[in-house]
C-alpha cells in the first residue's frame, strides 16, 4: 500500500509544475523549448481551430488581434461586446494551465525613447526576452504638419497689413505647440503684446498663409487643392448660435406657441379642403347620374342603344348605393338582388323607408326583373338625395353662422381683430361679399373655398321627387 501511495505521490509531483521537473531535471512531457504561448495555457482544441479557420470567409491578417478583426468583419453585424472575452471554447469557463512552461523572467532595464529629443534614459520592467527591442510606444508620437515659411517667402507673399511678422510667427508657434487646436491657441494667445484676435481671425490668417504657400510651392503645372476658410460665414454662424443660446424662456415659449398655431391653421385648412372635395364629389355624382338617367331614358324611348354606351361616366361609390352584382351559378332568387347591402347606414335606411311610405310606394315590391332594377335605382337615388339634403342643410347652417359673425363684427367696428381660432364649426362657404370683409379686417382669415351649390342640385331634388311620383303610379 505504501508503494502505491508513493508512486501516486510522485505521479502527482510530476504532473504539477514544469518548474519542479526543471529543478529535478526530469524529462518533461512535451519538449517544446520555445516560449509559452496562449495555446498552451488555454489549450484550445486543434481540431476545432481548423474548423473555424475553414469557415472564415475573409482571412484575418497576421498579427491583428482577433477582437479587432471581429469588429471590422463581423458576420452578424452585431455591436462589438464591451468586454471582449478570450475563451475560444464557448461557454465553458477555461481554466488557465499555469506552470506548464519555463518562467519568463522580467528585468529592470534602461531604455531610451526615440520620441524624446534629449535621449534621456529611464528604467522600466520588461521581459528579458525583449531586451534591445524598440520602445513600442514611440510610434504614437505623431504631430500635425504645420507649414514653415522662410523669411524670404514671408516678405514676398505673406505680407499682410493687419499682421506683423512677429505676430504671425507667434501664431504659427502656437499652432505647432497645440496641434492646430484653435480654441486652445486662442486661449493662450498673447493678448497683451498683440491685439485681441478672435478665433476666426486666427483661423483666417492661418489658412490664408497655408493656401498661399501651397500655391507658391506647388510644382508648376499641377493644381493643388487649397482649403478655403470662409471667415465671414463662421462669424455669422457664431453670432446666430449666440442668439439662439441666449433666448429667454419667454422667447422660446413664444416660438413654440407660434409653431403650434401654424400647425393648427394648416390642419384646419386641410379639413376645409377635404370637406369641399367631398361636397364636390357628391355634386358631380348627382349631376352625372341625372345625366346618365336622362340619356338612358331618351335612349330607351328612342331605342338607340349607342347613347347608352357613350354616356356612362363613372359613378363614384359615395353617391348612392352600389348593389352587389349577383354572379351566382345556377338558380337564385331575384329578391336577393333587391336586398340592401349592409354598408348602408341605419339613418339612410330610415330615410329611404320614410320617403317610400310618403310617396305610397311598397317597401317590398314584387321582384320582377324590371321592378328589381328600377327599385334599386330608386333607392340609390334616394340615398343620394338624402346626402345632398344633408350637405345642403350643413352649408345653410354655416352660411347662417358666418352671417351672424359678419354682422357682429360690423357692429363691433373694424378695430376688433378677430381671433383665428374658431370653436367647432370651420369656416367655408363663399359668402356673396367676401371682398368687403377682406378689405375691412386684413388679419381675418377667410378661405374662399367650398364648392358653391350649383343650381343644378337644387333642381335635382325636384326632379327626383317627380320621378318618384311617376314611378309610383
Amino acid at each position, binding site marked *: 500500500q505504501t508503494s502505491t501511495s508513493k508512486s501516486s505521490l510522485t505521479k502527482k509531483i510530476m504532473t504539477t509544475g514544469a518548474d519542479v521537473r526543471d529543478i529535478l531535471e526530469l524529462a518533461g512531457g512535451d519538449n517544446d523549448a520555445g516560449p509559452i504561448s496562449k495555446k498552451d495555457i488555454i489549450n484550445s482544441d486543434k481540431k476545432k481551430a481548423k474548423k473555424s479557420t475553414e469557415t472564415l470567409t475573409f482571412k484575418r491578417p497576421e498579427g491583428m488581434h482577433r477582437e479587432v478583426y471581429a469588429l471590422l468583419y463581423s458576420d452578424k453585424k452585431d455591436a462589438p461586446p464591451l468586454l471582449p472575452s478570450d475563451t475560444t471554447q464557448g461557454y465553458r469557463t477555461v481554466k488557465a494551465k499555469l506552470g506548464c512552461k519555463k518562467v519568463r523572467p522580467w528585468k529592470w532595464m534602461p531604455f531610451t525613447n526615440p520620441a524624446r529629443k534629449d535621449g534621456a534614459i529611464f528604467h522600466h520592467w520588461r521581459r528579458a526576452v525583449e531586451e534591445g527591442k524598440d*520602445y513600442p*510606444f*514611440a510610434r504614437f508620437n505623431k504631430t500635425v504638419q504645420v507649414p514653415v515659411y522662410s523669411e524670404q517667402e514671408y516678405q514676398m507673399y505673406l505680407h499682410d497689413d493687419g499682421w506683423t511678422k512677429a505676430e504671425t510667427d507667434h501664431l504659427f508657434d502656437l499652432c505647432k*505647440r497645440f496641434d492646430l*487646436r484653435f480654441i486652445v491657441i*486662442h486661449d493662450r494667445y498673447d493678448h497683451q503684446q498683440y491685439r485681441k484676435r478672435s478665433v476666426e481671425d486666427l483661423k483666417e490668417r492661418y489658412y490664408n498663409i497655408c493656401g498661399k504657400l501651397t500655391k507658391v510651392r506647388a510644382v508648376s503645372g499641377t493644381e493643388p487643392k487649397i482649403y478655403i476658410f470662409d471667415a465671414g460665414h463662421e462669424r455669422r454662424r457664431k453670432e446666430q448660435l449666440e442668439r*439662439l443660446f441666449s433666448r429667454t424662456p419667454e422667447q422660446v415659449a413664444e416660438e413654440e406657441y407660434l409653431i403650434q398655431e401654424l400647425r393648427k391653421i394648416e390642419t384646419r385648412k386641410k379639413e376645409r379642403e377635404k370637406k369641399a372635395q367631398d361636397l364636390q364629389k357628391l355634386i358631380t355624382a348627382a349631376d352625372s347620374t341625372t345625366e346618365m338617367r336622362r340619356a338612358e331614358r331618351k335612349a330607351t324611348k328612342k331605342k338607340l342603344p349607342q347613347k347608352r354606351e357613350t354616356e356612362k361616366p363613372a359613378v363614384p361609390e359615395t353617391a348612392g348605393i352600389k348593389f352587389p352584382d349577383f354572379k351566382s351559378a345556377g338558380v337564385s332568387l331575384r329578391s336577393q338582388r333587391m336586398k340592401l347591402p349592409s354598408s348602408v347606414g341605419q339613418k339612410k335606411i330610415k330615410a329611404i323607408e320614410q320617403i317610400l311610405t310618403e310617396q305610397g310606394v311598397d317597401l317590398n315590391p314584387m321582384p320582377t326583373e324590371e321592378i328589381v332594377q328600377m327599385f334599386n335605382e330608386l333607392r340609390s337615388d334616394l340615398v343620394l338625395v338624402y346626402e345632398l339634403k344633408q350637405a345642403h342643410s350643413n352649408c345653410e347652417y354655416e352660411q347662417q353662422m358666418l352671417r351672424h359673425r359678419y354682422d357682429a363684427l360690423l357692429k363691433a367696428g373694424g378695430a376688433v381683430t378677430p381671433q383665428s381660432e374658431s370653436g367647432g364649426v370651420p369656416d367655408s362657404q363663399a359668402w356673396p361679399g367676401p371682398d368687403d370683409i377682406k378689405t375691412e379686417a386684413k388679419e381675418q382669415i377667410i378661405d374662399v373655398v367650398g364648392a358653391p351649390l350649383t343650381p343644378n342640385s337644387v333642381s335635382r331634388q325636384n326632379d327626383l321627387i317627380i320621378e318618384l311620383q311617376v314611378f309610383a303610379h
Partner: protein
Amino acid sequence: MSGGVYGGDEVGALVFDIGSYSVRAGYAGEDCPKADFPTVIGVTLDREDGTTPMETDGEKGKQSGTTYYIDTNQLRVPRENMEVMSPLKNGMSTWHYNIPAFFLCKTAVLSAFANGRSTGLVLDSGATHTTAIPVHDGYVLQQGIVKSPLAGDFMSMQCRELFQELSVEIVPPYMIASKDSVREGAPASWKKKEKLPQVTRSWHNYMCNTVIQDFQASVLQVSDSPYDEQVAAQMPTVHYELPNGFNCDFGAERLKIPEGLFDPSNAKGLSGNTMLGVGHVVTTSVGMCDIDIRPGLYGSVIVTGGNTLIQGFTDRLNRELSQKTPPSMRLKLIASNTTVERRFSAWIGGSILASLGTFQQMWISKQEYDEGGKQCVDRKCP
C-alpha cells in the same frame, strides 16, 4: 503590467498632488494614493520669540534648531512650541532632491482624465476655493477659469458661528480627560486633562478645526430647492455629539449653512453680494468660452473635490444648471460615487497619465531643465 494591453508602461513614477487641505502622494499605476495627510507642517522652535520659522531654500529641509513634521504623531500630540504652517504659503523647494525627471500638470486636466474625459468643465470644490475650469482636448482654457472663495473653509466658518450662537464651546479631544453623558441640549460636563503642555494658539486652532470639519462632514446637507423655512422645518433632524459630550439634534441649520454655497445673497459674513453661487460659477465659466465648445462642456460637467461630498450637493447642482442652461442643451453631470474618487481624482488622473507608455516622452528630464530653465516647463507642460 504588460505594455500591449492598454498602453501602460511602468517606469516607477511618483505622483504628488498638493492641495490646500491635504497632500496626496503615491506611485503611478495604482488606483489610490498611498499617503494622504494634511497639508500642515509642524515646526518646533528652539528660539524664544516663537514667530514663523525661517525659509528653507537650498537646504534639505532641515535647519539648525528647527525640525519639520508632516502627519506624524508629533503633530497630533500636544507639544510645546509647535507651530503649524502651510507649506504652500511659505514655499518649499524640492530641487535639491535627485530627481531624474519631472512633469507638472494642472489638476483640472487630471481630474478630467480620471473620469474618462478629455473635454469637460471641471468643477472643483475643495477646502479653500470653488473653481470652474473648462478643459478642452486636454488643455485648460485659462480665460474661462472662474474662482469663488465659497468652499469648505467657508462652511467651517459658518459652523463655528453657529456654535457661537448656540453658546457651545468647541473643545478638541486632546483636552478631554473624561466626559459624562448629558441630556440633549444640556451643557456639556467634562473634565479637563491635567498636566496639559502649553500649546501654541495655531495648534489649538488646528485641533478645533478638525472637530468642526467632522461636524461639517456628517451633519450638513444641501436642500434640493432654494432654501425655504417651512420645508427646512420639516426635514428630519440629525443627532450629533461633540467630543466634550454636548449633543443636539440639528434640523433647519443643516440646510441653512450649505445654502450659502449656492445662494450667497443670504449668507452671513459676506461683504456685499458680489459672490457667485456654485451654479453661477459654472454658467459664467462656460459663457466665457467659445460657443462651439459649449455643448461639449455642458455635456460633461465633472464634479470633484472634497466639499462636493456634502449630501445633496450634486442633485442641487444638477437642478440649478438645468434651469440655467438653454433648453436645447444636453446637460450631463459626472460625479463619481465614492469618496476616494472624488477627493483624489486629480491624483488618480496623474497616476493614469504617468503610467501610460505614450507619456514617457513628455517628462522634463534634469538635463532639459538645466538647459532650458523655467521656459521649458512653460512650453512642455500644458
